């Protein structure tokens, strides 16, 4: 079995937090102007 080291725990927390962040970013991206809309 893989022993959870401190580095591993930090990696897992990073992945979980980053996944949630991307979830929020995706939702905001769905309701904000796209790059071409911002430029023109």
């Amino acid at each position: 079995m893989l022993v959870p080291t401190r580095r591993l725990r930090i990696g897992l927390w990073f992945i979980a937090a980053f996944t949630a962040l991307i979830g929020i970013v995706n939702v905001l991206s769905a309701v904000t102007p796209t790059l071409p809309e911002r430029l023109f």
Partner: protein
Amino acid sequence: MPFELQASGRLFSAMTGFMMLTLASNLLRRKRLAWCLAIALLIVSIVSHVVKGLDIEEALLSGVLLVQLLWMRQVFTAQSDRPSVIQGVRVLVGSLVFTLAYGTAGFFLLDRHYSQVFTFSGAIWQTLALFFTENNAGIQPTNELGKFFIDSVYIIGVFTLLYALWMLFRPVLFRGAASAAEREQAKNIVVQYGQSSLAHFTLLPDKSYYFSPSGNTVIAYVPKGRGRSPR
């Protein structure tokens, strides 16, 4: 770029947002299925961000997570949880909050596509009005994107609610803790080797089974609470 393509990109982006939020806690608990789903969603999501409007920043963020997930792939070994009602209720609450948040953010940030300006609380009320009033509280979209966003709130609401109902009814649909073949195998072992008066308790219907590689030994168990990775 055709409006339909951009609109479906926005819709897909919102749906993946919901899925990623539900996957986050499962990734922390090292679930293998969550890892597979996250990889698939991220790949499609990167393409979708670029197609819907050259959203390079979002695509890059997804790319960083994709690399990290692939790099740590050997860590995600945990089996999925058995379906439970509490898990279903949690997703149901999450889906309602998500739909309200999506509608609120949309009306607040896209209000130039409507004939009225929304404050934050006004955007919350407008989202609720979509579901609870007949004329959507008289909202007037001024262009195609405005019309699309109202439809998308309904689509997201239905999508998240269906997912929540699926999670809620899973414990009823998949009731058995072990398959018929596993039960039969456990029964054969108990009949052949069981010497304690407690041995027959291992055959009660709430039991799951873990068999040794030889198939001659069985451990009967009942999962309680949520499994966690060791800390």
